[in-house]
């Protein structure tokens, strides 16, 4: 339950921050949720990863649907990664790795004081 809550909070916080701040603000969000929600490092990492990645996946997928993959197909070809779907997945994975480590940092930070 805590795990799911942590994913949801990370997603919401990172979404809000990225509307006004650069992309790396997702790390801030994940870091904060890593501090707020007490979990093992591993679960913090995983919820940070999934929370931030989900936001990228869903938003990118939404844009892609709306724009009929017109640009994503060109970018996928340019980066030689096959398809718009692969491109969406790649973006989320990269965001997720950053979010995951940021959340783990937050969790590790909290554990300094426990």
């Amino acid at each position, binding site marked *: 339950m805590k795990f799911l809550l942590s994913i949801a909070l990370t997603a919401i916080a990172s979404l809000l921050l990225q509307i006004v701040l650069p992309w790396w603000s997702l790390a801030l969000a994940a870091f904060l949720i890593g501090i707020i929600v007490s979990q093992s*490092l591993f679960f913090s990492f995983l919820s940070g990863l999934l929370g931030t990645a989900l936001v990228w996946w869903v938003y*990118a997928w939404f*844009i892609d649907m709306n724009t*009929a993959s017109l640009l*994503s197909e060109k970018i996928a070809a340019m980066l030689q990664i096959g398809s718009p779907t692969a491109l969406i997945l790649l973006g989320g994975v990269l965001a997720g790795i*950053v979010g995951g*480590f940021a959340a783990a940092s937050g969790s590790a930070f909290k*554990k300094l004081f426990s």
Partner: protein
Amino acid sequence: MQSSNHYFYPNHSRMKIFRFLLFAFITLALVVLLNKRIVIKETALPPLGKFLSPFTGFWQNAEPKEGNLHFAENISGLQEAITVQLDEQRVPHIFAKNEHDLYFAQGYLTARDRLWQMEFMILGASGRISELVGDKALKYDRTTRRIGLPYAAKKAIEHLETDTVASTILNSYAEGVNAYINSLDYKDLSLEYKLLDYAPEEWIPYNSALLLKYMSNMLTGREYDFEYTNALKFLDRPTFELLFADFPKGIDPIIPVGTPFTKSLAADSSSKVQSFSTHQPFIPSPFEKPEANLGSNNWAVSPAKSATGKALLCNDPHLALHLPSIWYQLQMNAPGVNAYGVTIPGAPGITIGFNENIAWGVTNGSMDVKDWYRIEFKDASQNEYRYDGKYLPTKKIVEEIKIRNGETYYDTIVYTHHGPVTYDAQFKFYDNPYPVALRWTAHDASNELKTFYLLNRAKNYDDYINALNYYECPGQNFVFASVSGDIAIKEQGKFILRKPDEGKFIQDGTTSATEWRGFIPFADNPQVKNPERGFVSSANQHPTDTTYPYYYHGLYEYYRNRRINNVLSSKEKFSAEDLMKLQNDNSNLMASEVLPYLLTKINPASLSEIEKKTFSDLAAWNFYNEKDLTAPTYFTLWWDKFYELLWDEFLPEEKKGLTAPDFYNTVNYIITAPDNVLTDNQQTPEKETLSDLLTQSFKQSVTYLDKWSDSTKLTLEWATYKGTRLAHWLPIEPFYVKNLAIGGNYHIVNATSKTHGGSWRMVVELGGEAYGIYPGGQSGNPGSPFYSNFTDKWVKGEYNTLVFLKNESETNENILLTKTITPAK
């Protein structure tokens, strides 16, 4: 996870600190890494985090099917409210209440669709591409600066700022571009900025001057002074004049033969200029030239020859086929002006178009206006050079060329009174023995912007001629037609008063005897109004026959012009549809004149089965380069192979520092002088006849095409083989549009080759409808449905009916939205 995992569950507090620091470090390192452009060998990756973010990255450049319909409610810098109507083709129609706002809006709206492209062209024109892509562009950047494009633009802007009109439009335009740039966040930047990871700079009026110089270089930069100088080392004078004739037999000039010319100046036509080559060493050509085979067609048909009784005007400038397209359509309306046409992003005003009273168009006039002078420096310091027995001081300018991921390169350019010493000991790609300075009309200050300003507002023939009087470089054939029924054409530019042959060879820069003595008065430039034949036309051919009272030379077209004139003379009346057909005409005049002769030189008995098939395909051809025929492929390849064998003395050009005769002179040569010693291939011990070369090259071409077809799995139909494509300005193939099913080629009215073609086809019925199309689309964004949406129609030879609104309140069913934009407080 069990607590036995020492790493994740340490008890020691120092370990906990280490663990936190490690994760924090990894997080930060990832952020930095993903925020940075990474170059691995030749491949550059955009900053992946930034670039792939759906919030700010490339996803924000993806547009839905209706495109970008967002306009600001108010813009800071406008003086009064403007109205923008956007039509279904995404052409903005600007209605402004004053001139400032008109050009402000042009700058703003052009930037909205094309900001990256206009800035990229400026970086190109000022020799700053290395800033973006690193030292692989250093040679290009040095060349650009050493031929003096930024130097010329600086002179030009100083001059333009002294003219109220030019200064107003340039500054208003720049304010508009900057208002747009200042409204942007990272997420709004064009895709290319995100890819290359940089940001737009402030737009300054100087940029528009640079753009004009860039166009001047593209259109007048090509000459063969080095190559001709070299050719005289081994060709005798009669042979040289046979191969590189100033006026070959059979030309069909722009100004109809028999038209009287005026001569208000006495030209000095003393003996021919002694080429400098006879006592100079052989030097290969120093650097790449602007592209060959740029060209254009334009014509106007008089009311008497028009099916509707209204004059017709057509123009199709042929340029490199790029995306975003080189042209941007716009209607510009303000008190005193209501014009529609295409603009070059970065240049204020409409370049080719029409208003309620007149229409105008341009083709390149190819008179040589670019000369090279040999310089003798006093010593290696290059501080002084010899001139008329004295030494004059040079001026040196140090150019700072910033290089991405590299050290700044400093290039000292020496200036003489002739111009920049482009080519000296510091800048040589070959083993050149002496420095040369460049004298070029493009270096002179002039006010071409005013010509377009006045043409946009012109009401009649006199206004047109007055507008042209401000136009100097690059020389253009301005075609004109008016609602009142006048048609005219004038080759306008600042053309040099020359002695015969002057400017064809490298000249002696140590004496005033070789200097330009002046320019042909504008009133004497080749021109004709309402000629008897009922039409005027140009296609980059000679402006005049030899009765023109001033000497000139240049690089001219011999086929498109004759085809156009043949067609326009073939009928009593023409409709707009007839003229659209002519713009897309694929008749290969050259093939019809030379192929039957070539075929007689081949002995069919000596051919293999597949060669026989090709032979009969060619023999049955109707001489049209239609997209689905194979004969144009066979002919083109055969001719190219034959040309290489025939002119082995001159080719390859870059290696030998020579140029081979053009196709027209080559045809003249093989018909009139096939036994000349040049025919023999010097690379072989045998003595080849014309027939031998033709047979060899025929067999080579058939073998080559057979292999090509096998390896590519493609057919030999002309469009497939040619593979016409629209290339993005950056070499990113997914942004290209490729393999267009279109016919034509060089020297054909539809001059569509693999890389070049009709960049804007326009047909205007004066006082009636106007039609236009260009390859590409209004949006410069590869993520927009309007990036290349015109292309299909363009390929098929179809046109859009242009929406020309008489006034702001006129309703038109093709208007998609109307937006009033007010000045921001």
